[in-house]
Each structure stands twice: as C-alpha cells, then as structure tokens.
C-alpha cells in the first residue's frame, strides 16, 4: 500500500504546482475536483474501515462533496456573476511557482525532521498535507479576485483533510461528518457572499474591500 499512497500524494503535489502556474479559473476548478478524486481514492483504499458507516461518510465527504459539488457550484457562481476569467495575481506566475515549490520542499523536510519525534505518523501524507496548506494560503495571499480566495481556502481544506489522514487515527464519525457539513456550508455561504458583494459593490477584486481602516 506504501507505493499507492506515494503515487497519490505525488499527484496531489502536481495539482498544487498546476494551480500555482495557471491564471485561469477553469484550471483551478478542474484541479480542485481532481484533488477530491485523489483524496477519495486514498481514503477508500488505504484506511481499513471496520463499519460501513465510516466508509459511507468518507465517500460522501470526499467524492460527493469535494470532487463533484464544490467545482459544480463554483462554476455556477462564475457563470451567474460573469466574472472575468483572469485572476490578476499580485506577483508573476513564475514567482508563485517558485514559492509553491519552495513550500513543498520545506514541508517535506519538516515532515522528515518530525520522523524521529513522532514515529507512527505517515510522513509522506503529513508532508504533502502541510504543502497543500501552504499553497492554499499562498493562493489566497497572492490573488486579487475574491473568487480565487474561495478556491484557495478549498485547497487549504483539502490539505487539512490530508493531514488528518496522515495521523492514521480514525476520527470519530460525527466529527468527520461535522467537518464535511462545515466545508459544505462554508462554500455555499462564500458563493452567496460573492454574489451579494457583486451586486452591492459592483466589484470582484479585493481593492474595493479596503474601506474599513483606522
């Protein structure tokens, strides 16, 4: 099972790199759904499920929510508010690629450093989880359009989910169900907010959202 895990995490890291390069929203959404699929495969194969309930929750959470619903909903939001496709980042793509890869290298190094301290943690999953968190944060911090912030946050969510998998301890069912429910409501609310901001403030980028300063 080690090799399978390794391949999946490798693919996840590749999706991260793809996100950091591209400037177009469709690519972001495709990558998000791909990550959802990969996470589903990881959960489905590696984690040994005693009862069917935990298996069902895992499926719902990864396959239904992350792979299918979130990309579909984001597409609908982009079409409704006919948001321009360009993501207008603060920094050129090359620099963001450099940053993300640096992030990945650092997080893997940190994971190996932590190997001696906490033996029974799956190091590869831990490293890539931290990498996804860093990349999600970087996407939020370096893009101007608020819809890309939502996507950045989803990448962050996936990173944290990966982290919980690396702990190799099964979260109680209610907690993982709750986490899935929260992610779901969060995306709904973000979509609603984006639409309302679009109607009220007639803008899509963070510049109009600077009114409240001292």
């Amino acid at each position, binding site marked *: 099972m080690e090799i399978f895990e390794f391949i999946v995490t490798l693919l996840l890291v590749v999706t991260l790199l793809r996100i950091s390069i591209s400037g177009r929203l469709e690519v972001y959404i495709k990558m998000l759904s791909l990550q959802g699929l990969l996470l589903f495969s990881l959960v489905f194969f590696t984690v040994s499920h005693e009862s069917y309930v935990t298996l069902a929750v895992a499926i719902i959470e990864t396959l239904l929510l992350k792979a299918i619903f979130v990309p579909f909903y984001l597409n609908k939001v982009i079409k409704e508010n006919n948001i321009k496709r360009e993501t207008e980042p603060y920094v050129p793509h090359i620099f963001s690629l450099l940053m993300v890869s640096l992030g990945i290298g650092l997080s893997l190094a940190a994971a190996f450093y*932590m190997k001696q*301290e*906490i033996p*029974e*943690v799956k190091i590869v999953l831990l490293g890539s989880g931290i990498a996804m*968190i860093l990349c999600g*944060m970087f996407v*939020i911090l370096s893009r101007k359009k*608020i819809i890309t*912030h939502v996507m950045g*946050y989803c990448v*962050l*969510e996936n990173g*944290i989910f990966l*982290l*919980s998998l*690396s*702990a190799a*301890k*099964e*979260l*109680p069912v*209610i*907690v993982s169900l*709750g*986490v899935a*429910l*929260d992610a779901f*409501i*969060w995306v709904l*609310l*973000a979509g609603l*907010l984006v639409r*309302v*901001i679009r109607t*009220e*403030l007639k803008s899509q980028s963070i510049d*109009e*959202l*600077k*009114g*409240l300063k*001292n």
Partner: protein
Amino acid sequence: MITFGGMSLIFAALAWFFKKAESGSRIFFVFALLHLLSSIMLMVNSLFPSSCCAAWLPLMPHTNPLCSYVLLIESVVVMAVAWYNTDFFMRHEEIPYRHKSPIYHASIIGFIGAMDFAILSDNLGMVWVFIELSTLLSALLIAHHNSAHSLEATWKYVFICSVGIAFAFAGIVFLLIATDGNLDLTTMQLDRNKLFAVKIALPFLIIGFGTKAGLAPVHNWLPDAHSEAPTPVSALLSASLLNSALLPIVRILQLTGGTGLENFASAILLTMGFLSLIVAAIFIPHAYNYKRMLAYSSVENMGILAIALGLNCQSGFLIHMAGHSFIKCALFLIAGNILSMYGSKLIKEVSGMVRIHKGLAYLYLVGILAIMGFVPFMLFVSEFVIIAALFNSNKFLCVLFIILLTFVMYGLGRNMLKMVRGKSSLYKSDYRFKTAAIAPIVILLLIAAASFGAMMYRGVFENIL
C-alpha cells in the same frame, strides 16, 4: 446538551416561519427566557450534583462548573439582548430591513444554539465543528444591513476566522497523535513520550482559537465586525462569542497542567495578551467611531484574560470574564441607543449628550467608568487580582500592564468626555426611549455592581471554584 440543541433548532425553525418582525422578536424573547432557566438549572446541577434539578433535567449530563459558568454568563447576555431586541426593529432606521427579520431571527437563535454546543460538548472535534458553525451563522447576522462596510466586514470576518479555525483543526490533528485517538476532553490523557506532538499542536490551537477570541496579532477582524454589525448582534458577539472561543484554550491548558508544557503555553498567551493591550493602547485614543472604540476595548479585555490564563490566576480570569461580558454588552446597547438618537457613529458628530438625554449620558458615563475598571464594578477586583499575580511573577510586566491600562483609560476617558460634555451637536430633540431600550442596560450594570459587593463580602483571595 441535547435540550439546548433541540430548543434552539425548534425555535430557529419557528422564527423562520413567522414573517412579521414583532413575532420573530417575541419568539427570540421566549427562547432567551427558556435558555436562561435551563442554564441556571445546569449551573445548580453542576455545583450541587444531587440537588433537586437533577430530576428535572434527565437529558442534562453532569458538566464541569467552568462550562456551566460560561454558559450562565452567555445566557444572561442573551436575555438582555433579547429584551433589547424586542424594541430594536421598531426603530426608524431599521424600517427598510424589516423584510429580513425572519432570516435575522432564525440565524441569531441558531447562532446561540451553536455557541451552546461549542461550550457544552466534551469532544474537542465537536467543539471545533460548532465554533465553525457559529462563525458561519454570525456572518449572516453581520451582513444584516448589507451596506458596503458591513459586507466588507462580513467577508473579512468569515475569511480570517475560517483560516484561523482551519489552523486550529491542524492543531487538533497533532493532538490526536499525542492522545492516540481519544478527543474527549474530560478523559483525555497525554502520554509522556509524545510531548513533541503536543508542543507542535499548542501554537496551532492557541493561535487558531485565539483568532476567534480576538487576541492581538490575529484580531484585525474584530473591530470591523463588531462596529458594522447591528446593535444586538455586536453585543452578543463581543460579550459571549469571544468567551466561548476562549473556553477550548482553557480546557486544553487544564490538560497540559502537569506535563511541564505550561511555561511554553503561558509564554505564548502572555505575548498575545500584551500584544492586544498594546494594540488597544494604539487604537483607542485615536478611534474616530465609538463602536470601534468599544470593539478595541474588547480586544484589550481579551488580552487581560489571556494574561490571567498565562499566569494561571484562576479567580482573576473568572471574575474578569463575567465582568467584561456584562459591562461590554451594556455598553454596546448604549452605543446602539446613541446611534439611533444621533444617527451617526462618528465621535466628532456626537457631543453634548448631557443636554439632549441626561439619563443616557449618565449611563454612558457609568458604563465607560465601569469598563475602565473603576470601583463599583467587578473589573476592579479582577484587575487587582491580576496585578497581584503579575507583581509576584514579573515586576517589569506588571509596570508595562499598568502603563498600557492607563493609556487605554486616557483614550476611553477623552472620547467619552468629548461625547458627554460640550454644546450639543443635535437640535433640541425630545427623544424618548422605550423601557426595552434602557432596562437591560441598567440591569446588567446592577448585576456587575452587585457581584462587586459579593466579591467584597466574600473576599477574593481564597480560591473560588
């Protein structure tokens, strides 16, 4: 816990169903009454387990006194806000938003339910889930006026808090490693050799829940959210939400008691506490909007609570939390009255309140003196206890603490005197407030003063809980 959850779900549905604003606020009032009753019974039950109410509350498991104490504070605040809310929608500036009353009342009841769960549930995972849920529900409330500023505030509030709480979840995962799978706070055991995982988990947890509690380096959402939200919501946010976010940190710290990690945890808490005092000292004297000033004073008081936690000074922490919640809720309700009387939030445009409405001016004077930590109110006792603890642990920090408090006092005093004294910027208005607008404020201040008397009578320096 189930009673609280069930109650809030039923009432939220009811509120959603009734379209008229009056009926929505009446439902909210009834919900608040029930909420107060059950939390009092819970408190009595947790202090004296075998007492009479145990029979009454079959569904109420025995919770530790700390959670029921925080719940009691929250339910008193909810009661005051609900009473104020009955008159809130009748005011002239709320008329254009009456059509949004069902969503408003449903989400406010849901928000309170989520907070109850966050306080009462034992499992750290569930606590995280419900804090995330309360963030989302309160986002709807802040966007109630959907003006440019309030939308921006909501966006920032949702985003920064969710990122913060996501970090908290990462902390929980690391904690999971250390306690090999058991997340139940009451029965959690940290085994000795996995201390490193806990050491990594602590910063994530403290900073994660710290964003939600408004501690310093991650507090930036608090002034915007609390000053743009409608009055009852901002009172609720700053009086009860901040406490419920601070509670998980307290319970985790209780866990790391014996393991030699508490110096490390108190180091982080002390830095965050003093940073928030510095932030308050920077922004309060230069505040241009009195609701922002009150929000910064919430940041300051949360900083004091963090310092009390860092010093492990339990009585100071408990008194200060209760005092701050009551007085801050009263102050935000007064600010709401000032807003509806003067129509503007800027300190420049509000002056000579003594000439317009003497009662409100004196209430505002007393409220600001109370939050400054002057005598007839609880904050004086807690500040005395915290200064005593600080003095014994580190003299330099004590001096810094006093200097920063003086700066905050200077800022609050100057702004308050500017608003209360001087020629009135408003024409001679005979603005009449209904009892629902004034009574909750007076009762909250009276509770604070009465508990000051009780503290005096009982003597603070023996341990309380």
